[in-house]
C-alpha cells in the first residue's frame, strides 16, 4: 500500500510486520521516532505477542537483546551515535555469540564536539564488530532492508545493522510502498534458533574459550559473513519475487556503462550524486556511480568487477579515520588491488554538513581533470581552520577548539550580514 509517511515510521511499521517478539530501546536522536512508533503499536495491541522494554541505557538495550535472542525470541532494537558506542561491548558480544538481532542505526556523528546530525561515523566504527551492515539509500529501501535483515540474520545466526541516514532519511516524509502482512509472512518464516536456552535441552552459552579454540570460533564468524555475500543477493531476488521491487543486494551501479570516472558512496548521498551525474552525462562526461549497500561483508569481487573498466574512482564518504583519511576508500582500494586505477578520497558531510549538487559538480569536474589531491575535505572552511591554528601558535592557553571556531563562524556570519 502506498503511504506518505516519515522514514522512522515506515521502519517502525516494517519491523512490526516482521512479528518481533522482544523490542528494547533507549532513546537517542535521531532514532527516537522509530521506537516511539513501535512502542505505540505494541501498546495498542497492534503487534501481538511482543514485549516492549524501556531500558536504562544502550548497554542495557543490547544486553536485553542478547538475552531475549538467546532465549529464542525475534529481537529488535535501534540506536545511533553515542548510543552505539555506549553499547559496544555488548555489540561485539552479540555477534560473538551468533545471535540474530536486528538493529537500526540512525546514522549520526560522534562527539566531541557533540553533534546530533548525520554522518556515518557511528556504524562505521563498528565495522570489525562482526555485525552485517547494510546501508539504505531511500526510505523505501530502509523499510525493505529491515524485512530482509531478519531473514538474513536468522538464516546465518548473525546480527544485522540496518544503517539509515539520521534526519535525512529518518525524519523525511516520503512515499513508500508498505507491504501487507501476508507478503511479509510468506517471505519471513518464524524464527528457528540454532541455539536456545531451553530447560528441555539445557546448553551452556558463552563459555570461556582459550587459545586452543578462540581463532576457530572467530574464523567461523568470518565464514558466516562470506556466506552472507551469497545470501544477500539471493534474499534480494526472493524479495523482488515477493514484493515486486529491487531493494538491497550487495552493490548497485548507476550509469556505469563506459564510465571512465566512477563515484563510490553509501546511503542517501547516492541520490544527490545520481542527480549530479545525470547533469554531467548530459554534458557528455563519462561518469557513473557505484552504491555500496553491504558494507559488511564487503563485496570485494562485485566492487572490483564494477570498477575495473574505469580510469579513476572517487570515493565520497561521510566518515573520517583521523590520522589516515578514508575508511570506505581503504576497502575500495583493497577491492582494486593489482588494477591500475587512480583513486581519490573525499571526506564529506561530517556532522550534517549539507552535500550540495553544486559542490559535487565542482568536485567531479576536478576529478575528471585529475586535479584532485588524494584526500579532499569537501567544503572545508580553510579560513576558520587557519585562524584557529594561528591562535594556537600565538597563545599557549588558546582555549577549547570547538568554542573558538563557533565564535569565528558567528563573527564571520555577523560580518557578512552587517
Amino acid at each position: 500500500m502506498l503511504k506518505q509517511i516519515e522514514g522512522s515510521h515506515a521502519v517502525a511499521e516494517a519491523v512490526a510486520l516482521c512479528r518481533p517478539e522482544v523490542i528494547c530501546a533507549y532513546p537517542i536522536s535521531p532514532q527516537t521516532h522509530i521506537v516511539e512508533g513501535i512502542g505505540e503499536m505494541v501498546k495498542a495491541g497492534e503487534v501481538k505477542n511482543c514485549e516492549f522494554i524501556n531500558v536504562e541505557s544502550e548497554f542495557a538495550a543490547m544486553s536485553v537483546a542478547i538475552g531475549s535472542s538467546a532465549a529464542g525470541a525475534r529481537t529488535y532494537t535501534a540506536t545511533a551515535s553515542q548510543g552505539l558506542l555506549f553499547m559496544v561491548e555488548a555489540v561485539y558480544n552479540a555477534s560473538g555469540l551468533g545471535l540474530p538481532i536486528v538493529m537500526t542505526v540512525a546514522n549520526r556523528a560522534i562527539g566531541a564536539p557533540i553533534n546530533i546530525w548525520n554522518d556515518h561515523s557511528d556504524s562505521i566504527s563498528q565495522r570489525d564488530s562482526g555485525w552485517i551492515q547494510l546501508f539504505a539509500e531511500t526510505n523505501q529501501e530502509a523499510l525493505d532492508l529491515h524485512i530482509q535483515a531478519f531473514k538474513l540474520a536468522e538464516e546465518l545466526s548473525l546480527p544485522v545493522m540496518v544503517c539509515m541516514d539520521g534526519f535525512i532519511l529518518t525524519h523525511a516524509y516520503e512515499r513508500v510502498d508498505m507491504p501487507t502482512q501476508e507478503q511479509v509472512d510468506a517471505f519471513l518464516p518464524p524464527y528457528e534458533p540454532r541455539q536456545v536456552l531451553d530447560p528441555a535441552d539445557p546448553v551452556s552459552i558463552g563459555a570461556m574459550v582459550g587459545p586452543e579454540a578462540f581463532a576457530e570460533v572467530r574464523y567461523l564468524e568470518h565464514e558466516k559473513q562470506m556466506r552472507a555475500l551469497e545470501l544477500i543477493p539471493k534474499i534480494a531476488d526472493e524479495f523482488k519475487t515477493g514484493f515486486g521491487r529491487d531493494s538491497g543486494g550487495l552493490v548497485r551501479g548507476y550509469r556505469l556503462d563506459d564510465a571512465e570516472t566512477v563515484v563510490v558512496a553509501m546511503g542517501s548521498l547516492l541520490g544527490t550524486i545520481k542527480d549530479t551525474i545525470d547533469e554531467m552525462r548530459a554534458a557528455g562526461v563519462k561518469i557513473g556511480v557505484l552504491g555500496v549497500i553491504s558494507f559488511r561483508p564487503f563485496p570485494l569481487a562485485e566492487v572490483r568487477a564494477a570498477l575495473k573498466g574505469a580510469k579513476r574512482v572517487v570515493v565520497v564518504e561521510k566518515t573520517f579515520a583521523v590520522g589516515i583519511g578514508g575508511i570506505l576508500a581503504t576497502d575500495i582500494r583493497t577491492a582494486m588491488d593489482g588494477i591500475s586505477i587512480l583513486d581519490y578520497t573525499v571526506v564529506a558531510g561530517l556532522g550534517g554538513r549539507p552535500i550540495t549538487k553544486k559542490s559535487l559538480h565542482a568536485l567531479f569536474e576536478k576529478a575528471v581533470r585529475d586535479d584532485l589531491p588524494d584526500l579532499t575535505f569537501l567544503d572545508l572552511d580553510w579560513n576558520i581552520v587557519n585562524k584557529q591554528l594561528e591562535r594556537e601558535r600565538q597563545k599557549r592557553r588558546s582555549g577549547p577548539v570547538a568554542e573558538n571556531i563557533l565564535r569565528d563562524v558567528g563573527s564571520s556570519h555577523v560580518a557578512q550580514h552587517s
Partner: protein
Amino acid sequence: MSFQPVKFYQTGTFTVGNRLLSPDQRSVQANMERTNSLNSGHRACQGCGEALGARYAIDAAMHATNNQLVAVNATGCLEVFSTPYPETSWQVPWIHSLFGNAAAVATGVSAALKVKRQKAEMGDVRVVAQGGDGGTTDIGFGCLSGMFERNDDVLYICYDNGGYMNTGIQRSSATPPAARTATTMPVGPEPGNPFGQGKFVPAIAMAHEIPYVATATVADLRDLEHKVRKAMTFRGARYIHILVPCPLGWGTASHDTLKMSRLAKETGLFPVFEAERGELTHSTKVRRLLPVEEYLRPQKRFAHLFGKSPAIDTIARLQAIADKNIRKYDLLDKEAN
C-alpha cells in the same frame, strides 16, 4: 523463623541429620532428586564459598520451579571456574554474556520466555541471574538498578566475597573497611580499605521497593535454600545477597569457610534478614553475640590490625559498624542474649 520449627543448634551442632525431620522439612540438597545444577568437576578453589552458595541456590531454584529454570551469569570466578571450554558444570540452560550486564540479559531472557508462554510454545520458565560483588555492586549496578526499577521477573543472586578475587583480589565497593586487597594495601596512615566508602546493595535493592530482598550466608544453607525457594514464589524483581568467604582473598583456611560465614553473622558485621517491598520483614537473630575481633583475627586481610601494637581504634570502628547493623536490622534476640 516461621518456616523452621526445629532449632538445629539444639543438638549442639549445625548439622542435624535429615532423618530427624519430616520429608517436607528436608533440604533440597538432601533430596534424592536434587538436580546438581552446578555439577562436580568444576575448577573452584578448595573451600570456595561461591561454589557452595551457587550450588545450593540454583538447586533450590530448580526445585522451586520444577526444573523450569534458565540461569544467566556475569563474568567472574563463578563463570570462569564452571565453564572452561569445552567443559561445563551447568546442568541448567545457562548463558554468560559480559561482566556488567547479567541483570539486563536476564531481563531479555525473561521477556522472551513470557512471549513464548503467551504463544503456548513453552510452559512457565523462570530466570535467575547471578554474579559476584564486582559484577553486581560495581560494573553491573546500572543494569541491576534498571531491572529492579522495571520490576522484571528475575531473581538476581549476588555472591559477595568482598572483592575482585578472579583478577587477583582487588577492592570492590563491597570490600569491608580496613581490609587488605591488592589495591588497598595495608600501608600509610590508614592501612587497608578506607572507612566511609562502599555500598550495601541489599539496602539499595530495598529502596527500589521490589517484591523481595534477602541476605544469607553459606553457614546456614537451609536458610539460603528457604530464601531462594521463597523468592521464587514472587513475580517481579527479587534480590538475594549471599556472603561467600573466599579463602584465597581473605587469607583464611579452606576448611574455615563455614566458620567465617557464621562469624560474620554472629558478630553482626553481616546482617541476615528479609524484606518485602522495601520493608524489613524478618531478621535472623544473632545466637551468641561475639566481638568483631573473633571474625577479623583469623583473616590475613585484616592481619595488619593485629600486629605488635593492635589497631584498637580501627577495630573499634569496625565494632561500631557491627553495633549499627545490630540496631538497624534488629539482630539481637533480647531474651537470648
